Structure formats: structure tokens, C-alpha cells
């Protein structure tokens, strides 16, 4: 094989190599395509591999460099695109049967920006159907497996993105995070991922689950990789009225500030919320997170207690709002214009009922029904209206906390990866596992997830660093400082053996 060994390669290493002419984008792309061909049967990260398109894009990058043009900040960086991002001419399904055959005539802002920066999309990545789930068991295309243990879930809904980065089936990936869907799988797969401030990254071309909670963001192996991707993905977009006009921060510079010297966090105040360290948290998770806090202190950070008193209402608030918005956003899948349509309906009612009955999986159906209930006439105030008011309280908690600290550090998930089927029978228990991640979505504040250790059985444990609105730099600085002082991010999962488990009981 003439391909370079790309296992564990960082985005920075690839982009620098290609820009300097030390690596050819085409060779790097072939190396990843080769890995996908050999290993993804076991992991099921990709729902669509666009090998021809990837080669074409890689060749264009090499040609641009050869012609003396700037090949872009992400020159030749192979990335995976969560199948929730709309891609022109390439089937986009949200891992749902109802969107099978949907070939969009337009491109999402995020994927367009990544392509413009020279990134090479390898294909579309598996996920929980319509981003609804925390285990990737809700995909119509079969679950993604955790590279650290094929019997364990990779988390969700961006489980495919996290697993693909962990297994070096791409150098970076896009994800979306509505209640933890970037951070929780990053944590369960031992990679880094960021949910930026709401509006920091355009949602245009990101298929909506819960519009006011959906946050597109990047995955990478290192904090600096995440920062490099976010610098390209972020920024105002005239096609998204909720995008923020503020200039994009210098995220890689923030990383370097954190990495500098022995005490890169001198003068930084890190807040610890009592409400996030409650009974029910896995002991190994708690121990690893406490150890990480000590490490941050050694890096010069001042650790201060903060309070987020409305945390206990976050899950209920989140599920009222996200189901209401989902029931609305998923109304357009009616079999009239795109995607699945039932065969030979006799009436319009039957067209709708059968198309949706056949096309949606169990979890979207459950959330559509809950959301329809939440929004029904006469109950708006009792449910949705009240949820919006509590949401304001939760956001106020963060505002108050950030007067005392620069960032808040918590675990990402109270538990490490669980086994397939272990929680599918109890959706409420599954929802409760989102307790650490949903509040930042409700408040719209940025939050970074990164690895901070492993369980004795070898499953990753994740740290969450929450910043104030548009405070991505604070997250990156702290995350990079921690990363510079630890080795967790260097640990790689073993490549799955060829012919490893292809079926998972669920």
C-alpha cells in the first residue's frame, strides 16, 4: 500500500502537510477510503461513501496547490458529514426511511464552507433517525458501534461522527447537538466535539429536529482540530435569520494560549456546579472528572463553586420544547414532494397516515405524538408556555454563574457507554441520561466535550467545558490546556478485526 498511515492523524498535520506539499490530498483521501472499505462493515459509521466525489475534491485541492493557489485552511482534510446536513446531488436521509431517495438540490452552509476551505467530504455519516436518540440505536440503517467496544453504543445522535473520528475513518466530522448529540457521543467515543453558541454556526441546510435547540458543530481528535473546523464552519449567514453577526473568534489562538507554558490557565476561573455532581453518577466517571479538575487547578485555574439551581427542571423543559418543535418540523414529511410515499393510497388521509406510519421509526413517532400533545389548543400555556419561562430561568442561572467564573466544568455524561439494547426498553431512563448536556442547549451557551480518562473496562470518559455566550475561546483555552497536560487523546481504539460483529441484537 502506498497510502500514508492516517490512523490517529490530526487535522492540523494533514492540512499543514498538504499546504506545504509534503502530503498529497489524493493519497490522504485514498488512505481513509481504504480504511472505510476495510473497517466500516464492523462499525457502520457511513450510510453513504462518496469515493468518486472525494477523489475529485482531493484532486482539485492538489491541482490548486500545484497551480500556486491557496488550497484552503483545511486543504485535503478528509471529513465525514452527518447525514442531517443537506448535500447537493447526494442523498440526504437523516437516517430515516422517510427520506430515502431524497437528493437535495442545494448545499448546507456548513458543508459549503468546509468544501470552500479545501476539506474533502468522504460521505454521509450514520446517526439516530432525525437526531433523536442517545445511542444510535434509532437509525433506520442499523446502529453504529463504539470502536472501543463493539458491544457498546457510540452515543447519539451524532454517534457515527464520533465513532468515525475515533476509528480514524475521517479526520474530522460534522455533527449536530440538540440536547447533547455532539458532546455525549464524543464523550462515549473518546474524541473532542463542540456545541458552539446558538447562532454561531448556520443551520441552513441542517435538517431541523428542534429549531431553537439545534446546534451544528465539529468533531475532531484534538481540541485544536475542533477549533480549526469551527473557525471555518462558524459565522453569520444571510440564509439563517438566527445566525449571529459577530465576527468569528480566533479559536486556534485560544488553544495555543491554553497550551502555553506550565500554567496556561493562570487567571482563569473554573466554576463547578454542585447540581451536576449528584447521586446516580457513575463512580469511575466522577473520579475521572474530579481528577481533571485537579489538573486544571495545577494548570493555574482557580476552581470556584457555582450554582445552577434550575438544573433539575432542565430535562422536563427540554423534552417539552424539543418534542413540540419536532412535531412541527416533521410535519413536512407527507409523501407529497420528496422521500418515501406509500403505495396506492385511496385518499389524502391515507397518503399521509400510511406514508408517515411506514416512513418514521419509533422514536420520531413517539416525539411527534408527545409534541402534538404539548401544543394542542388550550394547553399551550400549561406546557410550552411554561417551558419557555423555565428555559429563561435556566439561561439566567448561567448568566449569574458566569459573573463568578469564565467557564463551567462538568462531566459530559453521568455514565460511560452502555451495551446495545440495555436501555431501549426504558425511554425515560434514556432521556434522563441527557441531564448533563441539555441545559447548555436550553441556554444556547457553548460547550466543549473532550476525553478525560477511561473506565477500568477501557471505555472513554468525557469532560464538559461550558462557556458564556460567544465564549468559545474560553472553552478552547481550558480544553487545550488540559489536553496539553494529559495523554488521553493519544490513545486510539484498536481497528476492528475484519468480519467483526455485523449484527447487533436490540
Amino acid at each position, binding site marked *: 500500500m502506498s497510502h500514508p498511515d492516517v490512523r490517529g492523524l490530526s487535522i492540523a498535520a494533514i492540512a499543514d502537510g498538504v499546504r506545504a506539499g509534503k502530503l498529497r490530498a489524493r493519497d490522504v483521501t485514498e488512505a481513509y477510503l481504504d480504511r472505510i472499505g476495510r473497517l466500516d462493515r464492523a462499525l457502520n459509521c457511513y450510510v453513504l461513501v462518496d469515493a468518486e466525489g472525494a477523489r475529485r475534491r482531493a484532486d482539485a485541492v492538489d491541482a490548486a496547490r500545484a497551480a500556486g493557489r491557496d488550497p484552503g485552511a483545511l486543504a485535503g482534510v478528509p471529513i465525514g458529514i452527518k447525514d442531517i446536513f443537506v448535500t447537493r446531488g447526494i442523498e440526504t436521509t437523516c437516517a430515516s426511511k422517510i427520506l430515502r431517495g431524497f437528493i437535495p438540490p442545494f448545499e448546507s452552509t456548513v458543508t459549503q464552507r468546509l468544501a470552500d476551505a479545501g476539506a474533502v467530504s468522504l460521505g454521509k455519516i450514520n446517526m439516530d433517525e432525525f437526531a433523536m436518540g442517545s445511542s444510535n440505536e434509532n437509525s433506520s440503517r442499523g446502529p453504529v458501534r463504539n470502536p472501543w467496544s463493539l458491544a457498546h453504543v457510540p452515543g447519539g445522535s451524532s454517534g457515527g461522527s464520533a465513532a468515525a473520528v475515533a476509528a480514524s475513518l475521517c479526520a474530522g466530522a460534522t455533527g449536530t447537538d440538540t440536547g447533547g448529540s455532539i458532546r455525549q457521543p464524543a464523550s462515549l467515543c473518546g474524541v473532542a466535539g463542540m456545541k458552539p453558541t446558538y447562532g454561531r454556526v448556520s443551520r441552513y441546510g441542517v435538517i431541523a429536529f428542534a*429549531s431553537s435547540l439545534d446546534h451544528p458543530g465539529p468533531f475532531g481528535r484534538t481540541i485544536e482540530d475542533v477549533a480549526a473546523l469551527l473557525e471555518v464552519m462558524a459565522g453569520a449567514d444571510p440564509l439563517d435569520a438566527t445566525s449571529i453577526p459577530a465576527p468569528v473568534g480566533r479559536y486556534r489562538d485560544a488553544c495555543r494560549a491554553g497550551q502555553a507554558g506550565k500554567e496556561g490557565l493562570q487567571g482563569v476561573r473554573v466554576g463547578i456546579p454542585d447540581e451536576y455532581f449528584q447521586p446516580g453518577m457513575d463512580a469511575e466517571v466522577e473520579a475521572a472528572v474530579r481528577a481533571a479538575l485537579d489538573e486544571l487547578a495545577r494548570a493555574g485555574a482557580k476552581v470556584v463553586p457555582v450554582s445552577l439551581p434550575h438544573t433539575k427542571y432542565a430535562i422536563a423543559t427540554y423534552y417539552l420544547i424539543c418534542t413540540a418543535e419536532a412535531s*412541527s418540523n416533521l410535519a*413536512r414529511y407527507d409523501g407529497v414532494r420528496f422521500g418515501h410515499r406509500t403505495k396506492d393510497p385511496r385518499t389524502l388521509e391515507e397518503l399521509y397516515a400510511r406514508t408517515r406510519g411506514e416512513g418514521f421509526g419509533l422514536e420520531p413517532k413517539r416525539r411527534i405524538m408527545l409534541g402534538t400533545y404539548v401544543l394542542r389548543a388550550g394547553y399551550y400555556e400549561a406546557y410550552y408556555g411554561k417551558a419557555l419561562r423555565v428555559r429563561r430561568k435556566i439561561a439566567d442561572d448561567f448568566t449569574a454563574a458566569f459573573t463568578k467564573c469564565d467557564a463551567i466544568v462538568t462531566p459530559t455524561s453521568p455514565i460511560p457507554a452502555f451495551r446495545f439494547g440495555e436501555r431501549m426498553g426504558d425511554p425515560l431512563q434514556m432521556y434522563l441520561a441527557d441531564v448533563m448536556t441539555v441545559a447548555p442547549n436550553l441556554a444556547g451557551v457553548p460547550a466543549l466535550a473532550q476525553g478525560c480518562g477511561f473506565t477500568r473496562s477501557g471505555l472513554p470518559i468525557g469532560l464538559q467545558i461550558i462557556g458564556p455566550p460567544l465564549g468559545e475561546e474560553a472553552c478552547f483555552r481550558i480544553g487545550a490546556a488540559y489536553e496539553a497536560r494529559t495523554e488521553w487523546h493519544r490513545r486510539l481504539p484498536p481497528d476492528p478485526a475484519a468480519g467483526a460483529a455485523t449484527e447487533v441484537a436490540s
Partner: protein
Amino acid sequence: MSADKYEVVIGLEVHAQLSTQSKIFSWSSAAFGADPNTHTDPVCLGLPGTLPVLNGAAVESAVRLGLAAGCKIRQRCRFARKHYFYPDLPKGFQISQFDEPICEGGAITFRLHGERRSIRLVRIHLEEDAGKNLHAAAGVSFVDYNRAGVPLCEIVSEPDIRSAEEASEYVRAVRALVRYLGICDGNMEEGSLRCDANVSLRLRGAAAYGTKTELKNMNSFKNVRDAIESEVKRQAVLLDRGERVVQETRLWDAARGMSAAMRSKEQAHDYRYFPEPDLPPLVVSDVELEKARASLPELPEDRFERYTTSSGLSPQDAGVLVAEKEVAAYFDAAVLAGAPPKRAANWLINEVLARVDDPRKLGAGDTAVPPAALAELIGLIESGKISGKLGKDVFTRMWTERRRAAEIVAAEGLAQVSDTGAIEEACRKVVAANPDEAARFRAGSPKLIGFFVGAVMKETGGKANPKTVNEILQRLLTS
């Protein structure tokens, strides 16, 4: 039915399509009449991943309409999603406004049989139009999404309207208002102005409203009037028989001249309104508000006032001129070019409007007789250059030949002869040639003067000033 037993109570919802370049939340053209599905884009088709971005021109239109109708403008308001399933509704919800409409209060003012009527408004809100289902034969349906996302202002009246005629006049007044503002072309046949009516009856003197029905599908003033008249009769018959009116939506069938029930209250949708999360709150700044206020043109009611006072027109004539802004603009231009207002109004109403099938065409700029040309013709008549009778012939030739009045008069030698010498000679000739008639005139048959005038006019080829002819003949015949 006892016509006076019941009081008719009507509230109207008028939907005005705003004539913006692009759609309310996306970039494809909002123009009417293109081939099906050629004015579309991913956003108005509701494709997954798309987001709405509000068109500022639609907001400006709504604000101007609100100011013109005297509404209170809500300077910070929200959009809401209204959910129902229908193939012409791409997203499964319509982006509309619910509890925070952009305009509240205000009124539409107009004349009904010369009496000033003011119908209060509940609100005006912004929303997007749906597409259009086209039902082909053999159970096949198509959907045209050209209309999907065209901006609409929904204008909701209080139940202040008391007759079918008043309802249709109200719609006329709304149409005039939106056309004066230039925010909607007001074409009911093409659906750019649509109207639903809530109709109920109550015993005269009763305080409580009766059960209402909602009438839909009335796409002309006549339909509005006919549909409501028919519904009033239907409800009165029911009430007379001691039966109840069922709250329902009824569809007007103009061809059959009757309405039919479409859905009852029990089948009514639960629209599950909630604030549109993809759009930040709409904010109208003080500066934008003042700019909109400053941009308001003279409105129909003000123009009516001006015509009946300073122009001295009758309310009837003023009403005709004001109804279409192009007609009023033509009138103003003719007056500005020097025509006396009353004469200009007469010529415009009796001659110009009689020759155009659609008065709005007067605004097209290529009218056969432009306002200045009409003023010139009126000037020739006023100054005695040509007679009023000849003037009508000249106007006809101006219209068909597209020539100026002075040019026709000069080329054809149509100018009146006011040279008393020449006229006197002709008069003497005629009197001399008709001695018997002259004798009878002198003996006391003054009506014969007409005979002599006619003969002189014939002698002069119609060009003599009739007034001068008359004077000279009187002198010659009585001396």
C-alpha cells in the same frame, strides 16, 4: 322571510397578496402567472434543512397599510406556526402571526349611499400564502407552488358590517386602499385580493350575536354580495322555522348561486400555534415607522374630501374618480394641465371611461388621450375656438387617431368662425333667402330662430360660433 326582523352581522377577513419582488421568506419571484412550479426555491418548497428569512419589503407594506388604516403598529412582534396538513402547504404549517399581529385596531372608511361608514379593524397580520392544488381528471392531482410563500396581509374586521352591499363596498374600499398604497394589485379574479365572511343574524335589538357561519371562495365583488345575501336568506329561513344555524365553513359556488357546507366546528383544525423558532422577533424601529408614515400617498378618503370641497365635484362624481387610483391620477393631471375640475370630471367620466374596458389601464402611460391632451381640448371649447358639440367629434378623432386636439382642429379647418363680418354676411344671405320665415318670426314665432341658426351653420360649414350667429340673427330679424 321577514326582512326587517333580523339584524345582519358580518365580519370580513380580507387577504391581500403583497406585490413584492420576491416571496416573504425566500428569494423566488412572487409574480403571478408563470408556468407551474417555475417560481420556486428550496425554502418555499419546504425542503428539509431550509429556513425562512423575512423579506423587509413585506414588512414595510404591512406597516404602511396599518398606518393608512389608522392601526397601532406593534413595533416588536413575532411570527407563529399554524399547523395543518394539505398538499399545497409545503411545510405542514403556515408561517403566520397569532397573538402578536403587526397591526391592531384602526378602521376602513368609505361611503355607502353617500353616507360615511367606518368599519373597525381587529388586526392586520403578515403571513405566507399556500400553493395551489390543481385537480386533473381521473383522480390525478397536481400542485403548483408558485404561490407558496407569496406575502399576504390578512385584514380582519370587527363584526361591524350590516349588509351584503356594505360588505362588498368594504372590500372595494380595502382594494382602493391597498392599490393607492401600491402594495397589492387588488385583482380579485387572479386571487391577489381574497375575502372570507363571517355571517350571523340576530333579532333586532338583541345584544348577543347569533351563531355564525364562515363563507369562503368569493372571488369578485358580486360574489361577495351574492354569497352573503344568499347566506342571510338561508339563515333567516332556518331561524324563522325555529331551527338552529350550525357553526360551519361554507363554500360559495358562484355557478350554482349557492353555498355548501365544507366542514363543521367539530371538524375544525387544531392549528397548534406556537412561536416560529426560526425567525427572531420582528422589530420595526422608530426611524422605519416614520419613513413609512412619510411615504403614505394621499388616501382615497382624503382625495374624496378634496374633490367634493376644493374641486367642487358632486359626491357621485368624486366617488367614481376616487375608486381607482389611476382615474383619480388622470383627473388630477388634467386639472393640473389647466382644465376646470368639473369639466375635466365630466369629460373623464362620460368620454374617457366610456372608452376603456379597464380603468386601471389609464395608468399605463399610453392612453390614447392623455390628461394634458384632454385639458387642451377642454381649453379650446372653453375659449370658444370650437363648439362643445364639435369638441365631442374632435375627441373621438383624438382617441382613434391619437392626435392632439389643436392639430385636428387646424388640419381640418374646424376652428369656429368668430369673424363677425363673415358671419353677418352669411346671416344676411340666409335672411334674404327666406323672407316668409323672417316674416313669421317677426309676427311672433321666436322658435324659428333655430331654423335660421341651423341654416347659417350649414352655410358656414359648422364653423361659425353659434353664440355670435344667434346675436346677429336676432339683430337682423328684429330691426
